[in-house]
Structures are given as structure tokens and as C-alpha cells.
């Protein structure tokens, strides 16, 4: 199997306070981690444990203070902003707790958005976005605005927006946190399917019930990986 994510001794240190009494916060304190292609991994931990920072580092939204990060075999540790944006655009799909859809864009336009920054022509963007929306079961809702969609549907649009990028890594941050139980189940079922199709998924959650759907749970505490639990 080929690794999608390889972290080696990754540290992330935030400094705050005055120069006299500087406070050092170690959000990540030496995390080493390997995620294989096609894995479905969840990251658990109490708030402040560093799990969000880990997700941001994995998503190239944040840069580690030290250590090394290989994404699909490519060293992405020292990329500048522009290069990191390009990698995010081509290799990483994000799903957020609050969906983050553009309120004035139709579902279709929302899904097209990452492809706009890839510079694809409109016709091709549309075709790919339609396919992604079909994949999440929203073929009938393409022209709807987010305000005309239910929470579960909104999150499915957001997932379609991630899928349209054909990312190497799909990162989800509390994807069911803003949803009722029923819609949450829908989304988890969709994740199951994506996993079955061979996509690599990393989900950050604090709910055991959700983490149990994955095949492997990484427990984070005080910026360290404290347990790597492989489920049957």
C-alpha cells in the first residue's frame, strides 16, 4: 500500500504574550503518523488537544514549526503560500462543520468553486460539478440556493465540492456537528460509501459514535498521539 500521509515528528508551537513573559503553546508536540491510501481514519480528542491543528497541518492551512510532511510521497513541508494553495486546490478536499457554502451561489456554482481556481473552462467545471452532485444524491437540487436546502443536503453539497477536486485526501472537521441525528446518519452513510469506493478520509470528531464508523481512531491529547486504535 502506498502512503498518502506521512508525518515525521511534526511540532507546532504558538508563541503568545509579551516578549518578557512569553507563553509557549505546543499545539502539536512531535506527531508521527502514516495514513495509507484508502484508509478511513478519525481523529479524537478533547478540545484543545491539538486535533484541529493536526487537521489544519494535514490540510496545508497551517505549517508545522518543525518536522516533515509528505503528501502522497511529495514533501509539502516548506511550501510557500502560493504553492500550498495549489496543493490544497488539487489534492485536498475540505468538509467543515458549518458547511461554508456561498449563500448566493446555487449548489452547482458552489461545487464548481474549487475548479474556478484551477482555471478550468466553464463547460468542464459544470460537467464535473454535476457529476459530483449526482454522486452525493443531489442531482435534483443543483439549482437550489443553500437557503433552500436542509442541513444534510447542505453538507452533501459541501462533500460534492470536495469530491469535485478528486482529492488525494478528504478532510472533515466535525462534519455532523451541525446536523440532527437523521441527517448525521445520512452523511456517515455517504462517508462509508466513499470509503468503500477507495477514497482516503480523515474525520475529526469528539463523538465516539462517529469515530466508530471509521476503521482507525487516532487519539490526540496535549499535542501528542496517545493511542492509535485499529477497529475490527
Amino acid at each position: 500500500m502506498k502512503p498518502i500521509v506521512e508525518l515525521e515528528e511534526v511540532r507546532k508551537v504558538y508563541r503568545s504574550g509579551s516578549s518578557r513573559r512569553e507563553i509557549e503553546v505546543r499545539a502539536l508536540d512531535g506527531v508521527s503518523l502514516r495514513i495509507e491510501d484508502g484508509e478511513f481514519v478519525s481523529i479524537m480528542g478533547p478540545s484543545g488537544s491539538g486535533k484541529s491543528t493536526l487537521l489544519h497541518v494535514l490540510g496545508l492551512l497551517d505549517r508545522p514549526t518543525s518536522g516533515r510532511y509528505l503528501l502522497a510521497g511529495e514533501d509539502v513541508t516548506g511550501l510557500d503560500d502560493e504553492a500550498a494553495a495549489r496543493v490544497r486546490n488539487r489534492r485536498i478536499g475540505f468538509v467543515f462543520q458549518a458547511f461554508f457554502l456561498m449563500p448566493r451561489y446555487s449548489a452547482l456554482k458552489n461545487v464548481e468553486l474549487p475548479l474556478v481556481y484551477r482555471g478550468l473552462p466553464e463547460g468542464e467545471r459544470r460537467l464535473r460539478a454535476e457529476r459530483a452532485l449526482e454522486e452525493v444524491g443531489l442531482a435534483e437540487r443543483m439549482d437550489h440556493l443553500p437557503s433552500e436546502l436542509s442541513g444534510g443536503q447542505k453538507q452533501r453539497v459541501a462533500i460534492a465540492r470536495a469530491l469535485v477536486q478528486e482529492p488525494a485526501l478528504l478532510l472533515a472537521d466535525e462534519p455532523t456537528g451541525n446536523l440532527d441525528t437523521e441527517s448525521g446518519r445520512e452523511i456517515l452513510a455517504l462517508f462509508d460509501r466513499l470509503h468503500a469506493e477507495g477514497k482516503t478520509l480523515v474525520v475529526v470528531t469528539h463523538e465516539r459514535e462517529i469515530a466508530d464508523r471509521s476503521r482507525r481512531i487516532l487519539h490526540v491529547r496535549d499535542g501528542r498521539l496517545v493511542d492509535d486504535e485499529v477497529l475490527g
Partner: protein
Amino acid sequence: MRFSDNFKIALEALFAHPTRTLLSLLGVIIGVFAVTALISLGEMATYGIQHSLEQVAGRSVYIQPQFKPGVESVRFDADLVKVLRVLPVRPVPYVFSSATAEDRHGQLVSLDLVGTVGDLPALDASVALARGRFFGPREARQGLPVAVINAKAESALFGNGRGLGRELVLNTSGGSRLRVLVVGVVQPAGGFFGGFEGSRVTVPYKLLWGRIPWKKGRFDMIELKVEPGVDLKEVEKRAQRLLELRYGKDRISVQSVQAFQQALSGITLGLQALLGGIGALSLLVGGIGIMNIMLVSVTERTREIGLRKALGATSAQIRTQFMIEAVMLTVAGGLIGVVLAAAVLYAAVLAVPFFEAFILSPTTVALALGVSAAVGLFFGVWPASQAAGLDPIEALRYE
């Protein structure tokens, strides 16, 4: 990212808050309106004055004896008029005097009394008859007692439209009484200088020569009407040479309206720069308004910017997006301002006779739009940099 997508995104953003967009445009609209309208008004006023000048004296060279205390002035006689015909000009000689006459209520009216040759309208396009006829060359040579008066003199002496065929008794400056028959009325001069016209009575030059002793045999001024296609400056030079040969140096003044026109251009150009400057100041204020609204917009759209970055927008792409938004705003404001200015200028032409023609030069329009685009570029830089510099994590967390 495709460049056209930038425009779509900017348009979407601007149409998301139409009222706010329009209000923030107001400053630029007023600024561009002011610049365009003031510059064009300046051009229109200049044109009005220049055009009037040209109508009155555009293609003429004026020669007069130079006045020097203690030296007897040169005498312009009928012979000189013949000599001047060697130049490509039509010489029109004038005798200037003044007179008084009683109006219908017995009040004295002062008049400009002018003697000249016959058929003046054929020589001078700015002289147009309203009614009657102009005295002919033969009447002029024989000094018959006929007169052509202007509309102002007619209304002062007889009342509007009642002068033709009437007898007019003039008290000349020579002390004599002169009875003349009014055979024609000329239309008031148009344009800027029409307003300065006095009450004028024009008679055959020979008539004045006969009645005013010190005017006998002399003209006070000769106007050289320059033939079409002939260079005015060249005529001026040749007339100067010819007159110097005849009378000696510094005894004659030779003038055309060109020098005056040039001086006038300088003044109006200065005026335009001043007016344009005032307009530019309001455009500056408009630009600050745009910057303000763009900064608000960046703050409001912090999360949107964070999302776009997470999805792979580079900082440069975000910056371009906001720059284009700012420039589109100001250029749209510029367009509205220009259209508004055009409407007001057009109304001014219709309402004010002084403005003879509607002038909105392409240069002015290009300048107005160019400046508004520049305002957008300049005042968009800061907000766009703020947007481009946002940390996506912070931006996505922003409530």
C-alpha cells in the same frame, strides 16, 4: 484562474448589495460628473467666445493710424484703399463718429455714427439685414442721405420694427444737423459680443466726409477681410510692410484677432485646469469612500475569503478579485458620472444661448474614465491587500 471568472465574481459581489454599491458609487459619480462637466463647460465657453470672436473679426486684419501725442497722425485716404487691393483681401474702410438724436418722446439718444462703403453685407458676413436694404456703392460714393440702423438703435429711436422708411435727424459731433432716411435695419450681432453692441447708425462715408470737416478725406480704420484659404499671419506681415513703405515705421498699427485669441486660450485653459482640479478633489473624496466600503466588504466577507483560500485560491487571486471589484466600482461610477454630465451639458446648451454647441470631447471622456479606473486601482490596493493577507484558519473561524 481564468481572467473572465474574476469579473463574474466581482459582478456577483457588487450585485449582492445593490443599494450599498450605488451609495458607495455616489462619491465617484459626483466626482466624475464634476470633472467632466466642468472641463466640458470650460470648452463650451471657450468655443462660444472664440466662435463669437471669429464671427466678428475672425478672418480680418485691422489697420489704424498709430496715435502719438504731438505728431500728426497718418491720413488714410481712398487711394490707400485701392493700394491695399494688391493684397489677397477685401478692404473695408470705416469712418467713426458719434451723434445724438431725439427719440419719439423727445429724449436725446447717443449713437455711434459709422461711415462706410456700400453693400457691406456682401463684404462682411457678420452683417445681416433684418429688413430693408443696405445702401449701395453708388450711394456711398455720392454721399446720399441714407442710413442703415441696428436693431438696438431702432428700438431706442422708433420702437421695435418701426424704423424702416422713417426720417432720422442726427446732431453730428461736427455741430451740423443731418437728415437721413432709414433704408435698412441690421440684425443684432449674435454670440458673446452681441451684448456689447451699442446703438449704431451706418451711413455712406462720403456723407460724413461732407458734414464733419475734420473727417474729410480720411478713414479711421480699414478692415482687411482676408480671402478664404489665405494665411492671416502672412497678410498681417505683408500689410505691415506695405504700410511701412508708404508711411514710415511705427506710424500704423496692424492687428488681428489671433493674438487676442491666443491670450484668451491661455486664460480659459487656466480656468479649465482650476475647475478640473476642483472636480478631481471630489473624485479623491469619492475614492476614499470606495476604499471605506471595500474595507467593510472585506471584513464582512472574511469567512468567504477564508473558504476561497481553503479551496485553493492563492493570495494573488484574492487580491486580483478585490482589485477588480474596486476598479469595476469606480469605472461604473465614472460611466454614470459621464452620462450625467452629458445630460446636464446638453440641457445647458438648450437653456443658455451663450453655449452655442454641445462639446463632450472623447479626450475628456477618456480622461474621466481613466482617472476613475486609477482611483479604483489606488484605493483598492489597501482593502485588497487586507483580503489577500487573511489567514484562512482565522478567517474560517471568524463569526
